[in-house]
């Protein structure tokens, strides 16, 4: 059933194209049925998924290497899947309204549904490689969605940057996962199980002890931090706000950016509890948590503000996973749900404001409460939940957040650092939320807003944000028991051991309540004196802005590429030969001299060697000298032909007729071809290159000659590999039904190679045919 959900969603993505025809909103909601159905299906699985039990379904792909499309459902993946499909349903419906006048809606929905399938695949994956495939697919679809309005340069830049960062992280992740697999193999996991999540987590202790742990973890962290836009790599998320709002609401708030959090949460029980793990997660997560909140207070564009609060919340989640412990696991589960609810609502309402009021910039908005009362009500709900005001779901999340920081088992400084980050973030959220609400909805409407004649609550579009906003208040009030039944399995997966808890609004007076109310008071105070805050320098110093850095990096790469291209591709055959020889000398020559040469045993002259064989060998250099000193093309061709004949003479002397025949045939035929070609070229060598170049070429070719001689000698005297000849000799007659071993090998044992060779011949012919045909047309 699991693979069905993922693969059907992916397969039905083209249905999105239907949105081109018919009434857009209606088609939107019709398409939304698909995720709604998956939501319902997944919800039924809830009873089976208690504690850390798992439903597993496997489609074998490469069984021997343990590579298979395996899907598993447990508490954590169920929570994520429900968030994805639930919010997905709302988003697709919302998109139908939001983009009803946009011709490309079909294409947009195609990407969106494709993304949803990929995201579902990611969270439902049972083995690391399946997860990675969908991980990359989400990066690609996110690139397509961000770059949806491809005629805007800003959108293209944002899309490119997000792709470079997330795909780059994906590479690091792949490497990390493979090393992790090796670590699992090293730790004794069965070879075809090394990539399964549960096997890795089970063998966690041994892996952590093994040598592969640190590199694997670092690379995986890079993958997770780039995906979840953590501090050094955070700048692509604000850039991704170029995407249409439905995409921002879905990808860049609720689902895709949480993939990094999901991965770390899933690996926590296995790979967590090591100093490296705690340090990295708490430090990076905590810093992004505080940093994101502070920067959010400075932003005037609503979507940028929301983007920074999102990446800050992600930082908080990662910090929680770093803190570890029972409360942290609970906090992670609760906050994932809480954040998904209020942030998607905020993004959708931001879309409504942009759609109705024509701008997202707080400076151009104001007094919308009179024109859009319903929207004002719902955005108030969502903002209050974000600020963590008591009766809201956000408050429950923040309570657990603070308890996790207090009760974590880490050393004191870590806990206080985490607590400080939480307080800063809480204050930041309050200021940002207050600024958003005040400038957009309170006060008088700005001059630009005044001219817009028709600004009112949009009918259908408001439905989608309303549901999560209402849930942010209803869940803490009425649905807590049901919610805790949903969140308990998720938390137990993160914690590693089954835990059950029942959420409650009121935990009595404890330090957590003190801290959170203190933070709220501080926030309100600071929000009052908002003007001095505005005086602070708005942005980071230029050099620290990640986006510019990346642009300069990409431009640099282009320049270097052009440079290399220029020097290498000069169009002269001589230069290509030169580069080939130099590469050959470096790549084979150097290791040969270092490793093989010392061990080379010069074979003692073989007793049967006749004097005439030795003397014949001495003749070949004469022909070579003749070829070098030839001053006309024809003499050069003749001498080269003679060298070939002498070599085939040797094959005859050592009675290898097949080889002699083939060698000589090729030799004469190439002489004839050269004659045909050269009869077109001017007879004399037009201009011999300068003595210096000729000396250089002489030296180079001399060295290559020595290298090849050495290689032949090495292969003749090596004892590392046992010779193949005996096998072929004895089986030639039995299996191959022929005494002529050479041909039996060519045609029977290694028939496939000959097949390849003949195809190469044909391709070469087609190449020549094409080239000459082009020349004929030109003349």
């Amino acid at each position: 059933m699991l693979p069905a959900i993922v693969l059907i969603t992916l397969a039905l993505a083209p249905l999105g194209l239907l949105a081109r025809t018919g009434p857009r909103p209606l088609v939107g909601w019709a398409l939304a049925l698909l995720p709604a159905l998956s939501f319902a299906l997944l919800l039924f699985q809830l009873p089976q998924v208690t504690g850390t039990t798992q439903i597993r379904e496997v489609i074998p792909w490469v069984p021997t290497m343990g590579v298979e499309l395996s899907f598993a459902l447990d508490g954590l993946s169920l929570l994520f899947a429900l968030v994805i499909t639930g919010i997905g349903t709302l988003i697709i419906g919302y998109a139908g309204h939001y983009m009803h006048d946009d011709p490309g809606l079909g294409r947009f929905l195609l990407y969106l549904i494709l993304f949803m399938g990929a995201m579902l695949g990611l969270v439902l994956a049972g083995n690391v490689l399946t997860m990675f495939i969908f991980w990359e697919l989400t990066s690609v679809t996110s690139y397509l969605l961000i770059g949806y309005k491809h005629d805007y340069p800003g959108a293209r830049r944002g899309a490119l940057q997000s792709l470079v960062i997330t795909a780059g992280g994906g590479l690091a992740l792949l490497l990390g996962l493979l090393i992790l697999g090796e670590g699992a193999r090293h730790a004794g996991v069965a070879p075809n199980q090394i990539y399964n999540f549960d096997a890795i987590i089970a063998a966690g202790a041994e892996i952590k002890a093994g040598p592969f742990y640190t590199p694997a973890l670092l690379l995986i962290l890079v993958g997770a931090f780039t995906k979840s836009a953590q501090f050094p790599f955070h700048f692509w998320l604000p850039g991704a706000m170029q995407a249409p709002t439905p995409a921002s609401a879905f990808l860049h708030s609720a689902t895709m950016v949480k993939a990094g959090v999901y991965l770390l949460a899933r690996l926590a029980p296995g790979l967590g509890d090591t100093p490296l793990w705690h340090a990295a997660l708490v430090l990076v997560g905590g810093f992004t948590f505080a940093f994101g909140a502070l920067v959010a207070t400075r932003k005037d564009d609503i979507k940028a503000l929301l983007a920074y609060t999102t990446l800050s919340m992600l930082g908080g989640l990662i910090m929680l996973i770093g803190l570890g412990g029972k409360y942290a696991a609970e906090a992670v589960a609760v906050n994932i749900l809480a954040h998904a609810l209020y942030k998607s609502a905020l993004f959708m309402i931001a879309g409504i404001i942009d759609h109705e009021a024509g701008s997202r910039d707080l400076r151009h908005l104001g007094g919308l409460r009179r024109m859009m009362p319903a929207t004002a009500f719902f955005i108030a709900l969502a903002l209050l939940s974000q600020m963590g005001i008591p009766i809201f779901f956000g408050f429950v999340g923040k309570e657990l957040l603070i308890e996790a920081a207090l009760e974590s088992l880490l050393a004191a400084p870590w806990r206080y650092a985490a607590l400080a980050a939480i307080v800063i973030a809480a204050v930041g959220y309050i200021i940002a939320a207050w600024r958003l609400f005040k400038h957009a909805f309170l006060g008088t409407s700005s001059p630009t807003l005044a001219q817009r004649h028709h600004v009112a609550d949009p009918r259908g579009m408001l439905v989608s944000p309303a549901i999560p906003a209402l849930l942010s208040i209803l869940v803490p009030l009425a649905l807590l028991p049901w919610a805790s039944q949903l969140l308990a399995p998720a938390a137990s997966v993160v914690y590693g051991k089954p835990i059950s808890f029942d959420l409650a609004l009121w935990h009595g007076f404890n330090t957590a309540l003190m801290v959170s109310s203190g933070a709220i008071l501080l926030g309100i105070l600071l929000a009052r004196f908002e003007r001095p805050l505005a005086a602070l320098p708005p942005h980071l110093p230029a050099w620290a802005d990640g986006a510019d850095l990346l642009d300069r990096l990409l431009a640099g790469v282009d320049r270097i590429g052009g440079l290399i291209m220029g020097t290498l591709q000069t169009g002269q055959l001589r230069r290509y030969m030169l580069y080939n020889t130099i590469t050959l000398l470096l790549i084979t020559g150097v290791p040969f001299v270092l490793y093989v040469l010392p061990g080379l045993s010069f074979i003692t002259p073989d007793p049967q060697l006749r004097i005439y064989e030795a003397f014949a060998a001495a003749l070949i250099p004469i022909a070579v000298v003749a070829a070098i000193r030839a001053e006309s093309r024809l003499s050069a061709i003749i001498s080269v032909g003679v060298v070939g004949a002498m070599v085939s003479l040797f094959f005859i002397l050592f009675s290898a007729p097949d080889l002699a025949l083939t060698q000589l045939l090729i030799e004469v035929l190439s002489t004839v071809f050269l004659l045909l070609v050269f009869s077109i070229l001017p007879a004399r060598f037009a201009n011999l290159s300068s003595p210096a170049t000729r000396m250089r070429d002489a030296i180079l070719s001399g060295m290559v000659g020595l290298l090849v001689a050495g290689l032949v000698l090495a292969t003749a005297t090596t004892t590392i590999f046992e010779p193949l000849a005996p096998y072929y000799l004895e089986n030639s007659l039995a299996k191959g039904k022929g005494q002529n071993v050479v041909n039996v090998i060519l045609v029977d044992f290694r028939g496939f190679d000959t097949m390849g060779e003949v195809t190469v011949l044909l391709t070469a012919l087609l190449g020549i045919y094409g080239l000459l045909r082009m020349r004929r047309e030109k003349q």
Partner: protein
Amino acid sequence: MNLFSIVMGILLSILVISLGLTMIRLLIGPSIPDRAMAFDTIMLHVVGIGSITAALTDAVMLIDAVIVVAVLGFLGTVALARYIEEGGN
């Protein structure tokens, strides 16, 4: 090493020596047709050496190789002659 193979060995060495002489002509041959002649003679020598080796090692298979070598020698020389005349030196 009976007398027969010794004598044949000597004959083979003489052939290789005469091959050496032809190579010298290849090296110094003033004009291109000289080199072409050297090429033709060398192919003949290859045929000779091949046949004697076949006799010495009693390898009947070599005779087939020698046949094709003879054909190739002829084809090579004729092609050379043609393109010398046509392409100019």
